[in-house]
């Protein structure tokens, strides 16, 4: 006769699940990340279709509102304003750079040689599910050359950084995510700064001393330091600059140029190079 072991009570499973997950949260485990991205890549075809269906429904609702023409004109004008603002910020930044060159800094002249990024064009197939984090899911992964920590841009502005990859899918951490940081510089004053995302859905400049000349309306662009992001990419515009509570630093809020809800495609930069004649994979 086989020995019969007493069965554990039913309530053990829920308690174990909660304890196990609490342990995962406390330890910040990373070994499950490949499994996570594997699941995302499995569901990415379905995800892509649901996303397109959602976009189609949204577009249909917009059309049916009876203000289609006006909305379209308005959208075009807003896009055009955004484009012109970006172009203006970029041009101002370039002009400031040239003035620096004229002062005879040979080393600086070398640093301003054109960087030609090689990139992979990717389509957005979904957003991250957590409310307090900012991320998107794209349809390109290691199979197309996308790797973790590669910068993600669109047009002439910064979108974010590749956080996780698997197969033909990647998770991109946007610049508004509380754990994303980009090295930036004011277009007007050329003051350097660190732009970081916050849990309140915006961006701010980190540890900016009161004496540093950054004002409301200043465009913030990437510096190109560390070779991660290309130079002169627009990050956003300063919308408020106030004296901090401590008095040493200023509280500077930046409105990012990137708008997650408008993103349909992005460019993942594989590497930066000063060589000429590079081709961008499409």
């Amino acid at each position, binding site marked *: 006769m086989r020995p019969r072991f007493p069965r554990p009570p*039913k*309530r053990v*499973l*829920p308690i174990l*699940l*909660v304890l196990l*997950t*609490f342990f*995962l*949260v406390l330890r*910040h*485990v*990373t070994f*499950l*990340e490949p499994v*996570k991205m594997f*699941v*995302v890549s499995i*569901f990415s075809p*379905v*995800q892509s279709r*649901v*996303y397109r*269906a*959602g*976009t189609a*429904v*949204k577009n249909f609702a917009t059309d049916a509102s009876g203000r289609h023409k006006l909305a379209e004109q308005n959208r075009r004008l807003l896009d055009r304003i955004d484009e012109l603002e970006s172009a203006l910020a970029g041009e101002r930044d370039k002009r400031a750079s040239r003035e620096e060159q004229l002062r005879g800094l040979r080393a600086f002249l070398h640093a301003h040689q054109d960087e030609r990024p090689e990139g992979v064009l990717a389509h957005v197939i*979904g*957003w*991250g*599910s*957590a*409310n*307090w*984090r*900012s*991320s998107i*899911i794209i349809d390109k992964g290691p199979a197309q050359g996308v790797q973790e920590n590669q910068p993600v841009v669109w047009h002439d502005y910064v979108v974010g950084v590749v*956080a996780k990859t698997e197969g033909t899918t990647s*998770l991109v*951490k946007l610049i*508004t*995510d*509380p*754990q994303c*940081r980009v090295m930036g510089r004011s277009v007007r004053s050329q003051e350097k700064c660190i732009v*970081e*995302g*916050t*849990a*309140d*859905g*915006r961006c*701010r400049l*980190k540890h900016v001393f009161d004496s540093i000349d950054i004002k409301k309306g200043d465009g913030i662009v990437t510096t190109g330091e560390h070779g991660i992001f290309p130079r002169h990419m627009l990050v956003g515009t300063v919308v408020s600059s106030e004296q901090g509570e401590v008095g040493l630093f200023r*509280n500077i*809020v930046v409105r990012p140029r990137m708008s*997650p*809800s408008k993103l349909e495609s992005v460019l993942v930069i594989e590497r930066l190079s000063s060589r000429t004649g590079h081709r961008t994979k499409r």
Partner: protein
Amino acid sequence: MRWIRVFILIVLVAMIETSLLPHLSLDGMRPDIALIFVLFISLHTGPIDAVPAGWMMGLAKDIYSVGTFGANAFILSLCAACMSRAKDYVYKDHPLAQLVLVIMGALLCNGLYLGILLLSPQSAFGSPEHIALRLLYAVTLTALPAPFLLVMLRVLKPWLGLTDKITL
């Protein structure tokens, strides 16, 4: 409870959360239908079934987001445990009671998530006023559709094998 059907519904909810709901966002905050789903399961079953269902739903959310893996699984399983207990003290089929439970659940989930974010290394927070405003958006956007969604989900009760039988 029929777990395979629950799993199918969890995948569907995760797909909707990552594909359709961002169109309804307000200041980046979206309705949390995962929480509404967990509340629905919790209202019609005991903690023994509600906690694993909440855990699975949270895991699906964790898979589709950056950040601490397991945070949503922990929060939603805890939320399921609290909800399945709290339902015994309210008239659970009344829309007002459901609304109150959703608001409490949304406050609990978002509060816990912010707490975990605070404990995570290198997290930036921004202005407390704006965070409070976003918290209000998150709770309101989740609470508003909850009574309608719970009525719609009630149709699926027999399909999911929910019998209102308390197992604990």
